[in-house]
């Protein structure tokens, strides 16, 4: 109890918190990101409508413009789409899917990247050379291309129903697997520095195993930069997912993400129903931008040399 | 002695670092002067403010550090309040700087000759050909063998000791009036150290250059300096002729410092040590800053801060030497 209080006090007194409060843009993006993420996570409880409850959908509500326009309906703040779904609620549910994919993909990249980077940096020699060449090769393929490739293979290999069921995981895998090299390189770089420090040698003198030294000693000291890249990567992953969904190879339409919403809405852009695609688009930009700004700040705050 | 005008005079220098945790006073009321041809050694524990004093004189305080009070005079002219451009000119022409790591001072992309020639052409009325001849002379003077051949080498082709000698040549070639040398030999091996020290000392003498020599190595000070200033927690606690300070330090901190240097000439059962550690800048105690560690502390030390006062031939900031100090009497009896 006293200890958590102490930790809280320490945090409020820390340089990180200080630099945070000193940067209005960061505070603003933190608030925006918090609202976006909160809205997405809590969508089933706070969304004004349930866009996937077929019983509540009414076709006569379709194509309603935003509430503040002349023909707007105050129950649908941001209007409705071609099937009468509330755009705001669809965005909240969509962001939920986008963020889920983003988080999981980043988690995957981080785990693969840390494992590879630690092993390459700590073991060195041939292991290092081989792992880093693989990372280099991986980096020369654009994320989208890899994702399309994986998606294509899975589609070809599995029957349609099975594919739809696991489509979400395929997307997560495809995005996650293409981003690990940046984590691996950063972790390897920091590991090379840390492994020569004397505290690691002290652990080796005691005779601890390699893996134990890597996990208990080196890992905690290389996590700082990983956190920064992870934050920046969350934005990229959400964007990548949106791109894939926009191209029609992402998450299945039964669980539309922000990207799916934009694609669906795109068909109506030129017939005048702009809100169906613009609002999900704005939501996507705001979400990615705020998360990236947070990442930028984190990078500066954790790197005293840049200040 | 007083009829020779000092080259450098520092009066009541105060350097502050405004931080979010409050104002840190890194240097407080630092005063000293250096005469032509004189070497002033500056010693003290790390963090005592030695480098900071040098940086303030050269005008290279790292922001947010700033001179918050006092004056720095070079040949009677104030240089602490000059605009950046003027200061830069003075820094090359009239003040030479030598730092601990020779690699950071030399530009790896240019030959040592090019760097020497550029410095001289900028600051002295020489054409490049004359400067080149002069550069070779300088390299010979600092003891680079076959200087005429090596003048076109790059810094990385020299060993650590040779690089430091090139740095010395670079600092001296514009014939500055003052040299600020911050730990010039710390990165060097003992055997090379002796070469560099001997060189610095000789050049300062011959050219009448004033030198401020910052180091934590008392041996180097004892050999090179004429006078020595002992710093503690951002203040000068004792200043005097080097022989007197080393052999008869008046301030309890200086005598502790001298006493804790292990002798090579004999083995001690137990070395004299100063207990505790120097306070952080944010927690300098009231009264005498040395009072938590001082074996001779008495009540006045806890409340009043001592100024430099005459003490056994030196100047020391210690209440033991104030007139009528109870401990001073006790000391004479004991």
């Amino acid at each position, binding site marked *: 109890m006293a200890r958590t209080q102490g930790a809280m006090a320490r945090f409020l007194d820390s340089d990180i918190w200080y630099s945070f409060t000193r940067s209005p843009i960061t505070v603003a993006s933190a608030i925006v990101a918090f609202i976006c993420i909160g809205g997405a996570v809590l969508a089933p409880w706070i969304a004004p409508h349930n866009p996937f409850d077929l019983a509540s959908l009414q076709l006569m509500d379709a194509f309603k413009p935003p509430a503040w326009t002349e023909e707007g309906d105050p129950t649908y703040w941001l209007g409705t789409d071609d099937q009468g779904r509330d755009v705001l609620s669809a965005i909240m549910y969509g962001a939920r899917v986008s963020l889920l994919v983003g988080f999981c993909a980043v988690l995957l990249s981080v785990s693969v990247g840390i494992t590879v980077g630690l092993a390459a940096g700590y073991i060195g020699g041939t292991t290092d050379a081989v792992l880093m060449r693989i990372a280099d090769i991986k980096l020369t393929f654009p994320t989208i291309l890899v994702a399309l490739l994986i998606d294509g293979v899975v589609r070809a290999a599995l029957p349609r129903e099975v594919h739809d069921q696991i489509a979400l995981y395929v997307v997560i895998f495809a995005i996650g697997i293409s981003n690990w090299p940046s984590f691996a390189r950063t972790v390897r770089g920091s590991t090379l520095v840390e492994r020569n*420090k*004397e*505290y690691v*040698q*002290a*652990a*080796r*003198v*005691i*005779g*601890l195993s390699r893996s134990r030294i890597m996990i208990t*000693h080196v890992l*905690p*000291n290389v996590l700082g930069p990983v956190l920064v890249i992870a934050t920046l990567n969350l934005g990229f992953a959400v964007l990548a997912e949106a791109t894939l969904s926009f191209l029609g190879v992402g998450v299945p339409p039964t669980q539309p993400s922000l990207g799916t919403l934009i694609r669906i809405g795109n068909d109506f852009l030129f017939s005048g129903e702009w809100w169906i695609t613009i609002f999900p688009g704005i939501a996507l930009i705001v979400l990615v931008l705020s998360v990236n700004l947070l990442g930028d700040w984190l990078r500066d705050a954790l790197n005293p040399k840049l200040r | 002695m007083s009829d020779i005008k000092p080259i450098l005079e520092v009066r009541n220098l105060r350097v502050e670092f405004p931080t979010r945790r409050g104002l840190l006073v890194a240097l407080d009321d630092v005063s000293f002067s250096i005469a032509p041809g004189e070497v002033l050694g500056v010693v003290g*524990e*790390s963090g005592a403010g030695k480098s900071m004093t040098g940086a303030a004189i050269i005008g290279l305080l790292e922001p947010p550090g700033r001179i918050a009070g006092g004056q720095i005079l070079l040949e009677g002219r104030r240089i602490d309040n000059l605009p950046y451009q003027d200061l830069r000119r003075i820094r090359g022409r009239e003040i030479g700087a030598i730092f601990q790591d020779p690699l950071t001072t030399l530009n790896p992309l240019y030959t040592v000759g090019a760097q020497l020639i550029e410095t001289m052409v900028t600051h002295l009325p020489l054409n490049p050909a004359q400067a080149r001849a002069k550069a070779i002379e300088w390299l010979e003077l600092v003891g680079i063998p076959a200087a005429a051949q090596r003048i076109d080498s790059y810094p990385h082709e020299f*060993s650590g*000791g*040779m690089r430091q000698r090139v740095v010395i040549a670079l600092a001296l070639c514009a014939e500055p009036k003052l040299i600020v040398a911050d730990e010039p030999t710390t990165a060097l*091996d*003992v*055997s*090379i*150290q*002796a*070469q560099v*020290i*001997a060189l610095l000392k000789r050049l300062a003498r011959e050219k009448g250059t004033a030198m401020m020599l910052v180091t*934590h*190595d*008392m*041996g*180097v000070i*004892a*050999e090179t300096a004429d006078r020595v200033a002992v710093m503690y927690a951002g203040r000068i606690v004792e200043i005097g002729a080097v*022989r007197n300070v*080393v*052999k008869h330090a008046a301030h309890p901190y200086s005598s*502790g*410092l001298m006493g*804790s*240097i*292990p*002798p*090579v*000439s*004999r*083995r*001690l059962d*137990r*070395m*004299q*040590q*100063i*207990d505790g*550690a*120097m306070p952080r800048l944010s927690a300098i105690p009231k009264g005498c800053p040395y009072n938590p560690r001082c074996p001779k502390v008495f009540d006045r030390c806890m409340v009043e801060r001592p100024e430099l006062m005459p003490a056994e031939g030196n100047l020391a900031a210690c209440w033991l030497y104030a007139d009528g100090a109870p401990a001073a009497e006790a000391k004479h009896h004991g």
Partner: protein
Amino acid sequence: MADATPMLETRDVARFFDVSRPPLQRLLAGEGKRMLRAVDGVSFSIPKGTTLSLVGESGCGKSTVARLVVGLYSPTRGSVIFDGRDLAEARADSTQRRRMQMIFQDPYASLNPRWRVRDIIAEPIRAFGLSKDKAEIEARVGQLLTQVGLSPLDGAKFPHEFSGGQRQRISIARALSSNPEFLVCDEPTSALDVSVQAQILNLMKDLQQRLGLTYLFISHNLAVVRQVSDRVGVMYLGRLVELAPAETLFETPRHPYTRALMEAIPDLDMTGRQRIPVGGEVPSPINPPSGCPFHPRCPLANDRCKAEIPAMMPARGTPQTLVACHAVEEGRDRMGAPLVEAVG
């Protein structure tokens, strides 16, 4: 009474490092492999309860010896024997491994910044399974902290909250926590201020007396070495050039390099003695000079020195001293006279 088996013995131990350029570049430039001989044939032994110091200039291989001795490097040649057993065999056995520990030079890099001090100190206790009981470990950590002059309450802090000297105390507490008998100390005070150095050296001496420790002590500072050593080895370019009881070495140094080092020490007593610099530079261990590695800088060098590597043998006059120098062997080393005449 005293156990005659030395705590540690090295026999002609050597360690080379491959510093060649990558294979492709090497092929293009048509050059062979380049070997850096960091340590090249070093033999010494340390009797139990005593201190052997190694001195020498930076890059002469002191730290490499230290790492060979605790098993961080494996020898390229020769062997290290720990209490009568081959080191590799001893280190495979955790009850033996526990008996040796190391203290490092840089107090800022030798403690994991993310760990609390109590976890740092308890790590060897846990790793060697010396105790599993939480309360017992905590008590032991408190006792260790007290032993090195800190407070048990300091265990809850992180390393960055301590000064250099205090961190070195924490390092010592960590090293002591597995009840070792043999400590390898690689420049334990080189990064510290003199006043703090005296604290740490006093502490190390006290601990040695109290716990009967054996030290391998590494330093480039002769004055420090004199304070702590029973015997001293002087290294130059990967080799031992002189090995003698401390008093003998400091009173009558024999090898020209040792004598030059002594003369290069600044004169704090200000006797007016002129300090005579050793001329020349430390050569590269990649291309060591032929014959005696010191010959390019040695005022006594002759043709034999350029061709033949001198072996360690008892010195005439001071038979306790082992020295590798032809001049000493031939009796032309001007013992007692200055090595070089001071040039007026």
